[in-house]
């Protein structure tokens, strides 16, 4: 007997074939943006802001050396002193979702929480748990849902 311990979720987020009633519905990993700027906890805010603006975003995810999410820098963070360490300006415990979650379910979280974005982080208790995958924007989810006629309304 062999145990595929990472299971169906791992299979799904890697785009491998599935069957069944809901197979083919879009997941967070398919819609999230993976080019979001990241920074380390000790980087000066001013240096990070230059990089973030160059990328056309207002947000930066603070990660450790393994890519595990520590927090998020967003609009209110940029008002702090440029010499401040990122970790001293970040939002702790930003809202997250998992890469395997269906976007037609995630949209309810956006609506109920009045959220514009959710960090997509890897699940599990192994070394990948909490690792940043990307950022899911509400506007992207709403656009994809509107385009996809097969999803429930």
């Amino acid at each position, binding site marked *: *007997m*062999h*145990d*595929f*311990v*990472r*299971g*169906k*979720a*791992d*299979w*799904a987020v*890697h785009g*491998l*074939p*599935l*069957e*069944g*009633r*809901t*197979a083919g519905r879009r997941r967070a990993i398919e819609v999230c943006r993976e080019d979001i700027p990241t920074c380390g906890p000790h980087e000066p805010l001013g240096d990070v802001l230059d990089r973030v603006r160059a990328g056309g975003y207002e947000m930066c995810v603070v990660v450790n050396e393994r890519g595990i999410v520590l927090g998020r820098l967003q609009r209110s963070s940029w008002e702090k002193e440029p010499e401040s360490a990122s970790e001293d300006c970040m939002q702790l415990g930003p809202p997250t979702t998992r890469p*395997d979650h269906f976007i037609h379910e995630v949209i309810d979280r956006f609506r109920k929480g009045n959220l514009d974005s959710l960090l997509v982080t890897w*699940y*599990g*208790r*192994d070394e990948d748990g909490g690792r940043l995958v990307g950022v899911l924007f509400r506007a992207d989810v709403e656009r994809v849902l509107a385009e996809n006629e097969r999803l429930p309304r």
Partner: protein
Amino acid sequence: MTARITREDVQRMTAEDAVLIDTLPENEYTEEHIAGAVNIPLRKLDRQTTAHLAKDAPLIVYCYDTD
């Protein structure tokens, strides 16, 4: 003895003759399962329920994730 295997192992083994067993409840299997998997919910998984499967083929079990 159960050996832990990866996604790549599953792809390689099922391309040969391995049998993939989804151990989630039947309704979850109906919703979605790995292509080609058969459903034997974990609480029913035993020597008797797997007896109809190919005797010499490796058996691979999976559930939803590691949590």
